[in-house]
């Protein structure tokens, strides 16, 4: 571990009277796989969306590469976003575009690649996720697992330094979940990315995690390795993890 790539200090976010994040502070270091655990509705996805600038926090600060991203102009924020990838819970593939167009979309919009380079990059990235045969398929023709893989391919095609995953294994069967988790770990090593993974899948976390936190009602209730979390005496943690272990 060396420099913190992402630093969050006293982050607060509410929707109306409902407090989602309550003075959250954490640091994610370069090359680290950081897991955010928690039950549904505890503010995990909101935290990710704040980091990427989709939601504006009510208070606190988010620093990426040492610079605060709050109150940045859209152009400056977009420069930071170009170094980040985001895998959405439902993959968020563009329905009206083929797999090829989905992957090439961020490249065409933000960089000046030739047609040949675009094609090469697309095929190479699809190769990494093992789906080069789906290049001409439409999103509606893909299964849940394939959609996640294509979503992942679209996120990494720009070679991001930071990768954010929002529930990467939700809605998948255990075998596909494991495959996706292994793929995330492989890609992280291959591309030397720093990752934040929001999940409540213990198996996924065990495969990927270097370090993890558990969120509950907007507060961090525990931070540590997966082993430390699963062996904790905290009643809520024991409940949460025993449930996950039974599911596995």
């Amino acid at each position, binding site marked *: 571990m060396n420099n913190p790539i992402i630093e969050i200090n006293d982050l607060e976010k509410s929707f109306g009277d409902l407090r989602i994040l309550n003075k959250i502070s954490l640091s994610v270091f370069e090359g680290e796989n950081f897991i955010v655990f928690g039950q549904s509705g505890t503010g995990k996805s909101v935290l990710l969306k704040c980091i990427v600038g*989709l939601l504006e926090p009510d208070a606190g600060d988010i620093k990426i590469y040492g610079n605060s991203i709050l109150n940045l102009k859209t152009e400056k924020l*977009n420069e930071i976003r170009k170094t980040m990838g985001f895998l*959405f819970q439902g993959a*968020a593939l563009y*329905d009206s575009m083929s797999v090829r167009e989905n992957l090439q*979309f*961020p490249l065409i*919009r933000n960089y000046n690649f030739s047609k040949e380079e675009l094609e090469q990059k697309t095929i190479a990235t699809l190769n990494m996720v093992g789906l080069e045969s789906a290049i001409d398929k439409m999103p509606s023709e893909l299964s849940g697992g394939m959609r996640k893989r294509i979503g992942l391919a679209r996120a990494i095609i720009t070679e991001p330094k930071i990768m954010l995953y929002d529930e990467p294994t939700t809605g998948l069967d255990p075998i596909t979940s494991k495959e996706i988790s292994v793929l995330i770990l492989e890609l992280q090593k291959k591309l030397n990315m720093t990752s934040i993974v929001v999940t409540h899948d213990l198996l996924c976390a065990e495969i990927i995690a270097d370090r993890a936190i558990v969120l509950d009602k907007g507060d961090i209730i525990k931070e540590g390795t997966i082993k430390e979390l699963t062996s904790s005496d905290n009643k809520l943690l024991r409940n949460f993890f025993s449930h996950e272990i039974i599911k596995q």
Partner: protein
Amino acid sequence: MNIPKIKYLRNASFHEKLESFFNNIGGLTVFNIEFFKQLFTLPIEIAQIKKHMSELGVKTFSIVSIMGFILGFVLALQSFPVLERFGATDFLPATVSLSIIRELAPILTALIFAGRVSSGIGAEISSMRVTEQIDAMEVSAVNPFKYLVVSRVIATTIILPILTIYVIMISLIGAFIAVIMTDSMSFIYFIEAVISSIAFGDLIPALVKTYFFGYIVGIVGSYKGYTADGGTEGVGRASTTAVVMASLLILIVDMVMVKITVWLWPSIG
């Protein structure tokens, strides 16, 4: 851009309905301002505009063709006995063509266009909103407003006047066929009478207002889609409310435009 999402209120009180109404007006105003801000920023989405224009043309071509033909045909058939009663059947081409050009073709084409296109845009953009596709664009450092909204609004604003000119021609063909059925005049006489009865003051204001109608269809559909909330229910609501709002605004703007036309060209009032 901070446009409030439109919350759907079940069993809303009068006060809540009133608040929602003003929220809509405020939101639509902010959305319009954002449109004009983005309109003059680069890049211009030429490819997207062309794609949307072509799609919109194909989507509405058949329905406006049928509507246009029936409009001209029925109008001529209905007008003939009335004019015959006063011995004024010679005025049939002028009456029919002026009604079609000044009012019926622009307004009916716009209303059909609103029904077909505004709902489509509302449904398309709102489904992208609820499935996080718009967020995905934003995270990819792409401006979704420019890509999705500005291109669509430009396309609807350009395509509606073109469709209206086409509907005028189809309606006149329909009217001529109805006239043939009454055996009252020749093709040459009909055409000459139509051309001699149309003035600059008839055609230009009628076409100018269709640009406004096209803009309304695009901006309302996009606004309803972009601010959709509440999953698949929100998608359905965005598409239906887009049609209602666009149709109402078209009728209000038509009323204002007719008044302005009469004020500017009193001779055609």
